[in-house]
């Protein structure tokens, strides 16, 4: 991106597959018993991509994978989703890269998913509270954003948790995944 050259076949394939995986996970819905809502595991995959493949793949697969699912299920969020998911993946990936050797791996990852999760929660809050009701002088948007908050928070939290378990699991069970890192 911005480097002028085309992606290598490996990058193209990995990005393509990651887009599919993020989209697949975004479709996995887990019910929250208290409310009647669901959250999805898309976050987990974006963070997973960030840790294994880096910020570019994570950002792009997040934006495109989650974006596609939003396009067919919840396009009212599409502009927000594309930006927010890209940022999540990019930031989590950057943190993981920059802090890689500086601290304990689990701590670094926990921090990365917290930051990524925060971006998601704050991003959607702003979108629901201020962008959607743009032009209307009201704080009703804030009300709606607050209602959606528990759902977004659980998603970010569980997404981060699962991502960390997944990465640890894959590193032990399928270390060959590192060969695909571009």
């Amino acid at each position: 991106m911005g480097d002028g050259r085309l992606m290598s076949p490996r990058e193209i394939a990995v990005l393509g597959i990651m887009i599919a995986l993020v989209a697949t996970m975004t479709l996995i819905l887990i019910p929250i018993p208290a409310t009647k809502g669901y959250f999805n595991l898309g976050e987990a995959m974006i963070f997973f991509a960030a840790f294994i493949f880096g910020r570019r793949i994570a950002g792009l697969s997040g934006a495109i994978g989650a974006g596609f699912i939003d396009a067919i299920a919840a396009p009212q969020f599409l502009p927000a989703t594309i930006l927010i998911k890209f940022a999540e993946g990019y930031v989590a990936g950057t943190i993981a890269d920059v802090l890689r050797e500086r601290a304990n791996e689990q701590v670094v990852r926990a921090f990365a998913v917290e930051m990524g999760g925060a971006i998601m929660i704050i991003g959607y809050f702003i979108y629901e509270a201020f962008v959607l009701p743009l032009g209307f002088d009201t704080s009703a948007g804030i009300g709606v954003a607050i209602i959606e908050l528990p759902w977004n928070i659980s998603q970010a939290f569980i997404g981060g948790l699962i991502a960390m378990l997944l990465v640890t699991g894959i590193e032990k069970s399928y270390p060959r995944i590192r060969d695909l890192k571009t």
Partner: protein
Amino acid sequence: MSVSDLTYVYEDGTLALEDISFEISKGERIGLIGENGSGKTTLCKHLNGILRPSKGRVLIEGRDIAEMSISEVVGKVGLLFQNPDNQLFCSTVTEEMSFGLRNLGLTEDEIATRSQRYARLLRIDGLAERPPLMLSLGLRRLVTIASVLAMEQDIVLLDEPTAWLDRFQSRTATDAIKGFASSGRTIVVVSHNMKLIADLTERAVVLSRGRKIADGSTREILADKELLRRAGLSPTPVSELASDLGIAGHERVITEDDLITALCRGRDGGVVRP
């Protein structure tokens, strides 16, 4: 186990199985054969409760599978899936084999004993600490076979057990299955390999396009060339060799032993010692 009028229709309306009925008695070794798409795998998934029939019932020891919980059914019926990659996820082979055993609620000691025993049986004990996903395809297959057999259920369904295996691995697996079955357990083997079916089973059920078209002794069915042709199946290689050679009595040649017997028969029908 008994299956009555089992009919299964996919969500998109395709009829997968139609009016299948048969009984399975304890200790039987049954071969389930048929073309691709004839419904063999679908039938197996009904026998261990993963799929629920659209019509008809499946009973285990008199109880309807539909009314049993997952753990109850899995305690009695095991299923080896065709593709090993659909289930391997642990960081060591031992852990992988323990997964199912833990779900069954066995003690840690019991789990360790069984894992060791079956790993040795399938000759993968040397790989105990390796991650199964990093092994070659044949070895991954052996791991899944070991994992299923270790669960020692009363009825075990094996979907293409020798697929992906090289010659030596195939022999290991077949011997393991034979030994396993000889302890009074019931096995159902799904395979395209007629030689394997002839080797492992004494009864065969033939499926074609979702319907059961034959059910009888393996020897009779594998000798019935017309039936095999209708079902889209080939006879055992030895069978074909015998008919190609035009040996007297080739119609009844199914296994190597049959071939030897037939070849050793003199013109008068007496057996000539080689």
